[in-house]
């Protein structure tokens, strides 16, 4: 009973801290972004008086703290995140982001749906064959695949599968030619990006699973399970896997939250019109409204996944209850 209360207090405390952190970061970034010189009027290629008038109307001439207040007010009262200036002219930023998000999510979702099961299987296999040649091979490959940067896979995949074998198109299909995001054409054009993203994740999960499982396998209760007559298979599935999952499951949850953020460089290489691409464009074109909104977005993903992972430990394993440890 007290345990549950402790957990509740812990969660509330963590969320409050998160909100504080979020607020400070938003304020810092807002000030830093507002201190940047606005893009020159002539670059916008429009009537200068209109541009000035528009900037006045959007409050760009007010003191920064007032602007910050208005920004916050806009978000909390009307869910208004500003409009695009240099790109997606005058379109609400939130709408544009929601339009881009599906690409990022779908590509990354495919990737982790493939890599997590594969990583787990390889990890379990390596742990069961610990210190045999199978384990040595897997571990060496894991070391290599974890170290090599994801863009190197991207170049390899692009060269081998897109240029040499010509199995897949070089860039992501556009929505008009593919019909919809879930169509076969779209899926086929996503394969190179999904592959490039997956190598590292598979290696990461393999390493993690192997480490956890091989530690669990040496536990006394495993010996007991075997002594009381369980077969090796039974002992592993009923006792070892469950205990290893206590640590692995939060990592899986973290991966699922991480799909929102995606990978800047993979989106860039394969021309995926996702959130990462939006971020790069907002910097190159100096669209600070997009930059600000995406900063908040990325920060929030990081913070939320941190909290969810920590809390999920407590829910998965009653032995770990953060709030009650003090």
């Amino acid at each position, binding site marked *: 009973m007290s345990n549950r209360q402790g957990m509740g207090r812990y969660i509330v405390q963590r969320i409050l*801290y998160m909100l*504080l*952190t979020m607020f*400070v*970061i938003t304020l*810092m*970034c807002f000030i*830093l*972004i507002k*201190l*940047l010189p606005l893009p020159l009027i002539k670059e916008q290629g429009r009537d200068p008086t209109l541009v000035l008038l528009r900037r006045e109307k959007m409050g760009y001439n007010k003191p920064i703290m007032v602007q910050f207040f208005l920004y916050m007010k806009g978000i909390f009262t009307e869910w208004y995140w500003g409009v695009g200036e240099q790109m997606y002219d005058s379109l609400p930023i939130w709408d544009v982001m929601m339009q881009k998000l599906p690409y990022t999510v779908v590509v990354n979702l495919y990737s982790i749906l493939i890599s997590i099961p594969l990583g787990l299987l390889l990890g379990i296999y390596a742990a069961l064959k610990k210190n045999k040649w199978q384990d040595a091979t897997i*571990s060496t490959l894991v*070391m*290599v695949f*974890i*170290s*090599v*940067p994801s*863009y*190197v896979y991207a*170049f*390899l995949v*692009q*060269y081998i599968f897109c*240029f040499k074998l010509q199995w897949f198109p070089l860039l992501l299909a556009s929505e008009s030619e593919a019909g919809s995001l879930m169509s076969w054409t779209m899926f086929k054009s996503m394969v190179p990006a999904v592959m490039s993203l997956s190598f590292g994740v598979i290696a990461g999960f393999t*390493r*993690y699973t192997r*480490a956890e499982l091989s530690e669990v396998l040496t536990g006394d209760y495993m010996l007991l399970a075997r002594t009381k007559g369980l077969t090796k298979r039974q002992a592993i599935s009923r006792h070892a896997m469950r205990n290893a999952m206590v640590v692995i499951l939060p990592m899986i949850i973290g991966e699922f939250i991480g799909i929102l953020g995606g990978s*800047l*460089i993979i989106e*860039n*290489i394969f021309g995926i019109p996702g959130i990462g691409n939006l*971020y*790069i464009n907002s*910097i*190159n074109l100096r669209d600070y409204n997009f*930059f600000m909104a995406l*900063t908040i977005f*990325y*920060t929030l993903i*990081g*913070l939320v996944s*941190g909290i969810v992972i920590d809390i999920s430990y407590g829910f998965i394993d009653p032995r770990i209850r953060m709030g009650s440890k003090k």
Partner: protein
Amino acid sequence: MTTNQNNFNLNDIPQEKFEFVQLNETLHDERIKTKAIGYVGDAWIRFRKDKSAVIAFILILVLALFAIIVPLLSSYTVEFRDAYYRNIMPRLPLFKNAGFWDGGKNLTLNKAGYLYYQAIGAETGKSAIISLKKEYVDSTGEMRYDVRTDSYHRIGFVYQNLSQSEYESLMAYQNETGKQVIYPLAKTHNATSEAYVNGNDGANFWYKLVDESRTTSGEPVLDENGNFIPNYVTSSNENEAGYNSLRIEGDGQDGVWYVYAFRNGRTGNYYKVRVNYEEYFIYKNGFSPNFIFGTNVHGQDIFTCLAIAARFSLLLAIAVASINFIIGVIYGSVAGYYGGWVDMLMERISDILASVPFMVVATLFQLHLAEKVGPVISLLFAFIMTGWVGTASRVRTQFYRFKGQEYVLAARTLGASDRRLIFKHIFPNSLGTIITGAVMTIPGVIFSESMLSYLHIINLDTSRTLTSIGTMLSQGQAQLQNYPHEILFPALFIAILEISFNLFGNGLRDALNPSLRGADN
């Protein structure tokens, strides 16, 4: 047993039964004869046993040496850009006849193209075709030739506009060395696209073509022996345009002379000449062209650029790692040692900093500072801004682990000051973990830097002396289909570097912290 034999009670041993072992000197434990092994020595012994870490360390040293030595010895620089030797294939003189790494490029040509390359060899004496692999008729009934062309020789000839002094010194060079650089001007053809691939304005068409019209296929007329028929500009004046230097064979028959230069420009002070580009390159630069890793689309030597990029990456990473190490150690020690509200406040601050995505930090620093202090310094600031948080939290954890231990409490009881406790008693114990952490940040920094420059968030394109692996990767990516070597070498370099650093870091961790051996293995 003894009691029974000697018939006396153990409690009542007679005094004369006792005797001293010796009385002359005091007794010691046996002296330790071996030399004491210190912490470092101990770590070294453990490190040596980890073969993969040793190999990784050697690889890192080799790559670092490459990065230091090559820029010093190379004939090329980042600034060196050759207008004609673009997208040249890698060549190592050692592999001259190996069939790879010989500067060759496989092409499939039609008849006109095949003869075009043969003509270059016929005029310069240096064959542009390394080998003819296959000769066949394709489905449309045309002849096809699978050949391996020499990407250096196939440049052949280019037109150059020289000023009068340049023209004269080039002629003087010819007379002095006896090397033919300037060749007779060819009559203008409407050259086929093949000639423009190399950007030399069709300077290689020195022979008669079947069809001189605009839609020419570029196919040459051959004489009865199968030789090309020269189609040079001729004159009755031997020294047309002031040429008085070497002449090619067959020149000057029947009072007809080949023309080696046109006076050009409004004032007539420019000389348009047709030069053998390889010889001209030697004349201009003083060394013969050889690009071990080939050249990129700008005509830069990839070998040198890669070394300079690697030097930049390594220096940046080491600078970031050491600065973060210092800040992190001070911050983490204070937070971990004092605990309480100091710790809480400091934790909040570092938590906030750690929660800002690194991409955002790097971008903000670039936008604010790149114009004032340059992209490199602002990148360094960005890495330092949030990078130390990791070190600080590691140090803090170590302090929590050690500060309550008996030996620290004992030292405190004896009156040791805070500073002494921190730096003499706690810090050395946590050094292993902290150093490992610092080394492990190096591959991360190299990766992030290459990613930022690949995405052009930091922009080194304008720099004349610096390039980065990310910049090279993004240049190479545009040529991935036709010239994969341009991306292969930078990608291979960074992959090997990352693998080596991770292996080395693991070895270092096991060596410095034996208790953590195989922690995530």
